[in-house]
């Protein structure tokens, strides 16, 4: 479409020329000829515009489709990643990839992909048209193409490297920013704004410098390409001019050549932009695929079938487990069932939380087995395992939204009665009801505005609402006072149906009623028995118990 216009113009020139030189045509003939050309120019102009619009619109829409699809895949992939993955990567890094890098890919699809195709078609078509007129001159006029190919390939390599550095630096900047916002209270408390500014400055500077490098590379590469392109103009005028003078060519034909080159100007200019966006997209794509290609360490095995929970017996058989290189559990064995609750205590870092995390298969053990009702959790679908297990953590994350939505998080369809029932068991209903907006109260990001104990109890209600067969409390009442804690436990016992309960706590009174208590130290079970058994002999448990009794001076219990 674009190529018809130079042709028409060339014809117009030739017509004008013939007119002047020959003067044979009548005024009317010429006028109608000119009119015909004019109408064609308008029609082709409009057609070109419509096609341009369609192309731009499709480019835009396609790019959004691609990037949104990528965004969804990225999102799903992140949701499916194992905890091992999240332990080692910063939210800022993940956000930077999810925002900036996907945008980089989008821009490429929008401007790059369609344009690459267009440039190729135009160069080839122009070459054909030109060769038909005069193949020698065509060769000269298009002599810049190989250089263009070479130089843009080199530029692409350079830019790709630079873009990778830019994106990594942007990732760092995002991380700095994210931490600054998340830790705002610490920053303020220490009056560390200036310190933070300096930190920000260093990374932001780096981004600026790298982007400048990219601009320079682009300018150098683009400049030399355009220079060679303009040399082709000079060569065409010179050699073409000689040809016209020697009578091998008409002026109109030469004008057509120039018109073709003029048409190619725009794509050549676009090309440099394209090279840039390609380079950016390849390295951004690389960063995204780094995440997408990372296999989740916890996936359904091939024969995985849904777990059928009958009674909810959890067994640890000789389980050994480590986070990366740090050993966390060594040969741990125990069994928990509805009639046999387990309590776990131990110093920080002794592996208590590891036990909790292995049951819903947040991680896989290095050796040994974790089974639910006799089936190893690694043999069942991850989804069904998590459905069976309700784990409440010490530092629960609450989402931006109402208290009701937070409690219903695991079961958005739940009715008001079940929400209230769960909140009652978690001993948080009265508190919620005392708020002016009750269950509609919005709790901000990270639940700021609630005390630790309130957040923990909302998290308990959230887990209870799902009615899991197996309940694990990972120090989830640490900020709740002992009295409320005891009432939660009492209410749990009264709840319908049998539950397997594993309680991890440092407050021994929370464990007192467990059927078996394990004392963990350095990932090993060093003592086990009932509360009374453990108190009867000279155990670590007993000294801890005495210590806690002394600390509370008879007040705690």
């Amino acid at each position, binding site marked *: 479409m674009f190529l018809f216009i130079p042709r028409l113009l060339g014809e117009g020139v030739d017509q004008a020329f013939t007119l002047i030189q020959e003067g044979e045509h009548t005024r009317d003939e010429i006028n109608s000829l000119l009119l015909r050309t004019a109408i064609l120019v308008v029609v082709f102009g409009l057609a070109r515009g419509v096609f341009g619009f369609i192309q731009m619109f499709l480019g835009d829409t396609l790019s959004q489709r691609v990037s949104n699809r990528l965004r969804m895949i990225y999102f799903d992939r992140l949701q499916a990643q194992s905890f091992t993955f999240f332990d080692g990567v910063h939210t800022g890094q993940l956000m930077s990839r999810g*925002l900036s890098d996907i945008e980089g890919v989008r821009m490429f699809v929008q401007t790059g992909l369609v344009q690459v195709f267009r440039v190729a078609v135009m160069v080839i078509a122009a070459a054909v048209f030109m060769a038909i007129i005069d193949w020698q001159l065509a060769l000269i006029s298009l002599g810049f193409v190989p250089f263009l190919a070479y130089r843009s390939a080199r530029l692409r390599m350079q830019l790709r490297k630079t873009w990778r550095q830019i994106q990594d630096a942007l990732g760092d900047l995002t991380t700095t920013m994210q931490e600054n916002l998340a830790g705002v209270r610490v920053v303020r408390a220490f009056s560390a704004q200036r*310190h933070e500014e300096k930190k920000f400055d260093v990374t932001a500077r780096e981004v600026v410098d790298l982007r400048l490098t990219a601009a320079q590379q682009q300018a150098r590469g683009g400049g030399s390409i355009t220079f060679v392109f303009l040399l082709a103009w000079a060569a065409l005028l010179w050699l073409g*001019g000689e040809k*016209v003078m020697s009578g091998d060519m008409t002026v109109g034909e030469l004008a057509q050549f120039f018109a073709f080159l003029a048409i190619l100007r725009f794509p050549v200019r676009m090309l440099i932009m394209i090279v840039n966006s390609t380079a950016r997209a390849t390295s951004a794509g690389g960063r995204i695929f780094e995440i997408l290609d990372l296999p989740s360490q916890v996936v359904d095995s091939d024969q995985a079938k849904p777990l059928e929970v009958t009674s909810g017996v959890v067994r640890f058989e000789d389980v050994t487990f480590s986070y990366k290189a740090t050993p966390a559990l060594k040969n741990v064995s125990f069994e928990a069932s509805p009639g046999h609750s387990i309590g776990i205590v131990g110093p920080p870092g002794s592996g208590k939380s590891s036990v909790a995390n292995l049951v819903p298969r947040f991680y896989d053990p290095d050796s040994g087995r974790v089974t639910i009702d006799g089936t190893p959790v690694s043999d069942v679908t991850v989804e069904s395992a998590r459905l069976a297990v309700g784990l409440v953590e010490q530092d629960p*994350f609450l989402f931006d939204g109402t208290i009701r939505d937070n409690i219903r998080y695991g079961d958005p369809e739940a009715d008001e009665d079940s929400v209230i029932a769960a909140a009652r068991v978690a001993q948080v209903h009265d*508190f919620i009801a005392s708020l002016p907006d009750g269950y509609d109260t919005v709790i901000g990001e990270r639940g700021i505005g609630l*005390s630790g104990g309130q957040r923990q109890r909302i998290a308990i209600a959230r887990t209870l609402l799902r009615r899991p067969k197996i309940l694990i409390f990972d120090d989830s009442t640490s*900020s709740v*006072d002992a009295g409320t804690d005891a009432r939660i436990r009492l209410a749990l016992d009264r709840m319908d149906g049998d539950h397997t309960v594993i309680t991890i706590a440092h407050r021994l009174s929370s464990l007192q009623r467990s059927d078996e208590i394990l004392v963990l130290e350095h990932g090993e079970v060093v003592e086990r028995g009932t509360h009374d058994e453990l108190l009867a002999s000279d155990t670590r448990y007993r000294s*801890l118990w005495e210590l806690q009794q002394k600390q509370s001076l008879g007040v705690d219990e």
Partner: protein
Amino acid sequence: MATVAGKDKQPDRGRTRPAAAEEEHKELHESDEEMFSQLDSTVFQRFFYYAGPHKRQMAIALLAVIGFTVANLATPLLVKIGIDSAITESRSGLLAVIGIAMIANAALYWITNYLQRVLISAAALEVLYDIRADMFLQLQRLALSFSDKTPIGALMSRMFGDVGALQEMLESSIEVIGDILTLIGIVIIMLILDWQLGLIALAVMPLLLVLRFVWQPIARRAFLVMRRNSSIVGVYLDQNVSGIRVVQAMNRQDENHDVMDSKVRTFFWSSVRAARLGGILMPTVELLTGIALALVIVLGGARVLDGTLEVGVMIAFLLYVQRFFEPIRTLTMHYAVLQRAVASGHRIFELLDIPIEIADKPDARPLGDIKGRVEFRNVTFGYDPERPILRDINLVIEPGQTAAIVGPTGSGKTSLTALAHRFYEVQQGAVLLDGIDVRDVTQESIGHVMGMVLQEPFLFSKSILENVAYNTEGATRQDVIDACKVIGAHDFVEELPEGYDTVLEQRGSNLSVGQRQLLSFARALVANPKILVLDEATANIDSYTEQVVQKALRRLLAGRTALVIAHRLSTIRDADKIVVVEAGKIVEEGTHSQLLDADGLYARLWSTTYSSFDDIASNADTLVANPQTAT
């Protein structure tokens, strides 16, 4: 913006919003209408403000752009001269000269092109850097009430998404400036060559301008909606990454996929709408190009016949009309970018324009060395002025004293400590440090005399050394180690793979909560503040660590004024003064034994079998009524 200021004063607690996620931007802009009325000119004015310091560089860049434009426009002119004067006249020598001139022109093009690109890029990057730095600065200055209610994802989206859109525009501004100059150059050349034909070719321009005026407001709105929807997607992504443990534990992946999908879809349709509006100018411009060309052909051709126009001029015209519309075409393409950038610029300046509620007075001075007397004088405060959290508080803590603040949740304990650091502004009354109003001193100096240990120990993903020495100038490695030894963190730090140089994972997730808390105690100790605030700092500490911490606390509190919020009575008992707060008022004040003798709320709680004040407001009656429910 008045509305923003008003919004800012809303309370962060117990605030309700009718619909959750879609409403997230209400914080930052209230009504579209108001915003649109003042959009264009202000945003551009602000850009120019930021460009100000780079005037010199911009001026040089502009020279380069002019050189570039000349080189750009000279090419067809040289072709015309070549054809008219050399080829048709068969003058080989002149042709060679013109050929060389074209090569020289190409070189000029090269150099000026390089210069304009690099110079403008550099200036643009500096502008962006300044804008981003200002945003960062603004976020450091805004009152905590802002941070409390604005999702991090929303801010990140502005810092990165919107600044990125600006970047895109500034980068394409290189092309745009060249294009505009080219346009002007072409108009001048055409008018010089033949003013009548020139005017005819330009006749379509007014039409284009009219169209643009109609189109602009509609397109802009579409782009703004698109940016906002994009931000909503970002916020949701951030929430899910942060809460991933809950997501997985609750099997919410499918549900979340659907939510994300609907957000992405909304974003998609808004971007399709924006694309449609962005692209609609394209056929219009092309049609007008065609009409202009047709006019030149018909009218110009007729005049060539009449002998009033040279054929070379007509060829040049045809080439120039082509060229004339090329910049218009690219400008049309860049227009979408520009619109997006204006929308983004608006979102950026909106953030920058939120008034800083708590700013240093012009004559604020540093607090300097103080003894550490803390006084609340008739303090009334509320996040929402209509609903005060604290009412008429009078409290004095003498230097070196430890005051324990107890009371039910929501009684205003945390607000009280936050006021001491001037995180929020009092409504009435004053907070005084050594008799000096906190509003009369620089906020920075308050941080140097006051340390805080909060319930949630936030650590940065830096080394332990850097974390413990956080913002304490001149703190040595030895200081850090000493502090950790005193606090009892030294042993576990030594056991880490790289000891004090171990880099913490996000929020210190490779440490237990108790260990993190110990490090935050050490951090406060290194800072060596005169006044210390402990806000439920021991709530997350297990019994093992607690023995250590109790000892550490004694060291930490020695010689300092302390405000301690705790819910364990055992922690509170030893305080010099116990302050019982209920519903925003101090109801009792005294030592442990004095309060027991007074036989008030404190004594009543003490006599029950409960160890905590958490939730007493809602549960006190049931507590007393059913003591047997506790083991």
